């Protein structure tokens, strides 16, 4: 159980996130096969293998530094929509830590909120369009509402909300990304990027709550 994370712990947590994503790439690819072009898992493997390497190579000077390094690695190695989106999420989100020496409840909520802002600006998608935003937006809202209860609760609520968001994407018709022409055929399948978003939060929660 961590009430706050030091920069070094934040770095360890991001390594754990990377390993969790890499462990789930086959599932992510399958999800993308159902409604996209079937490459989400292999793209995330490129990006998050790079995150693991970047974490090993990054001095934990500050929380912002390690989150930004993760985002830069994702952006540089993933490719595709996911690379731009998750790269942007981490890079934009990292600015929430600029003034902080540790990762705390408020900082974590700020990370999700700033990350969401960045993603919306970059991809111009709205909630309800069956993207990772449908996991990230409820997670950001839930985390803000839980700030007073501390970091563990913030990340636990965010993860729950993201999972709910993933479930909700099954009932959405995609209107952006490669799934958008599926129309009603996209119903019943979750959005791959939303699943990834939820996995990222899950791994963070497991680290923080452990």
């Amino acid at each position, binding site marked *: 159980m961590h009430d706050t994370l030091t920069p070094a712990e934040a770095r360890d947590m991001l390594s754990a996130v990377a390993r969790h994503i890499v462990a789930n790439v086959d599932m992510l690819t399958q999800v993308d096969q159902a409604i996209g072009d079937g490459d989400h898992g292999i793209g995330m493997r490129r990006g998050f293998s790079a995150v693991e390497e970047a974490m090993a190579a990054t001095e934990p000077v500050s929380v912002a530094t390690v989150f930004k390094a993760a985002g830069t690695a994702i952006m540089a190695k993933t490719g*595709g929509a996911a690379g731009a989106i998750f790269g942007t999420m981490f890079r934009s989100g990292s600015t929430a830590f600029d003034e902080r020496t540790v990762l705390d409840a408020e900082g974590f909520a700020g990370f999700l909120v700033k990350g969401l802002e960045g993603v919306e600006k970059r991809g111009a998608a709205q909630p309800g369009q069956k993207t990772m935003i449908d996991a990230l937006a409820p997670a950001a809202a839930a985390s803000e509402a839980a700030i007073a209860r501390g970091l563990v609760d913030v990340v636990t609520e965010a993860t729950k909300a993201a999972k709910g968001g993933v479930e909700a994407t099954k009932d959405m018709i995609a*209107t952006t990304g490669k799934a958008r022409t599926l129309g009603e055929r996209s119903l019943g399948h979750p959005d791959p990027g939303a699943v990834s978003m939820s996995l990222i939060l899950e791994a963070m929660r497991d680290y923080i709550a452990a």
Partner: protein
Amino acid sequence: MGKPKKLLNNPVNVVTELIDGLVAASGGDLRRLDDRNAVVRTKLAEDKVALLIGGGSGHEPMFPGFVGPNLADGAPCGEVFAAPTPDLVLDTLAAVDRGRGVLMVYGNYAGDNMNFDIAAELAEEAGIVTRTVRVWDDVAAAPLDRITDRRGIAGDFFVIKVAGGAAAELKDLDDVYRVAVKARDNTRSMGVALAAGSIPETGERTFELPEDEIEIGMGAHGEPGIARRKITDADAIAEEMTDRILADLPFSSGDEVAVLVNNLGATTCMEMLIVTRKVHQVLAQRGISVHRTDVGSFLTCQEMAGLSITLMKLDDELKRYLDMPAHSFAYSRS
């Protein structure tokens, strides 16, 4: 259908290796950008608007096969079906810029749009001027009033050919941009898929089609089209596709067009020619004259079986740049 059998080495390296092959085949005309997955012309004209094209790999010969004289100057190549990363795009932009700015032409996909946009922002910070033309020729992808939601498929070919010609002749980026936009806005395509291609790294096909069904309007990564149906005569399918394309722009009697019949990968040349024949018949019946016809594998989706039909409505300016001689791996005309 079972997993496709392929002649590959480690599938993680396909993009690197195919670029090696392309550079070798070019006999010195092309080079790799350092050790990156990008292709650049060896001899760049000193004073020229640069044309940069690119996107995910797996669609060979698009995009790197269209780098050459009077075509593109460079192409960053993403992994299979994944847009190239911003830094790769940026480095290729920097390599091809001759100080007159860079026109970027690519297919309209979320991943490409975002990655090229980020690169363009970084380029601006570095003092490189860019303009962007996204190709959205696939009439099956969205209704006309949401044309910017459409994907780019084989229409890339015409836009690149025209933009390449314009970039070789016109000295002003805005001018080249204007011509490329005109080419894009006059281009419409539709595809049909008979069987799926696969992703080398997973070995999995990107979709499944029943033994006797085809999908009209399917996209270049196996994105769903507008109708799945029992396979029928080539003529009926070609006529339906051509008519949908014609109705969209719309093209009308008296128009002059360029025709492209593009192989999505595994379709036989025989089928391509049979469909080409029918497209010409339909156009003749509708009073539309054909200025030129190209038939071949230009934008593929791995071993997908199927083809797409593209029409570009011509005026004198488009004809001029379309007809300019050009030379590259994928396309060569004197």
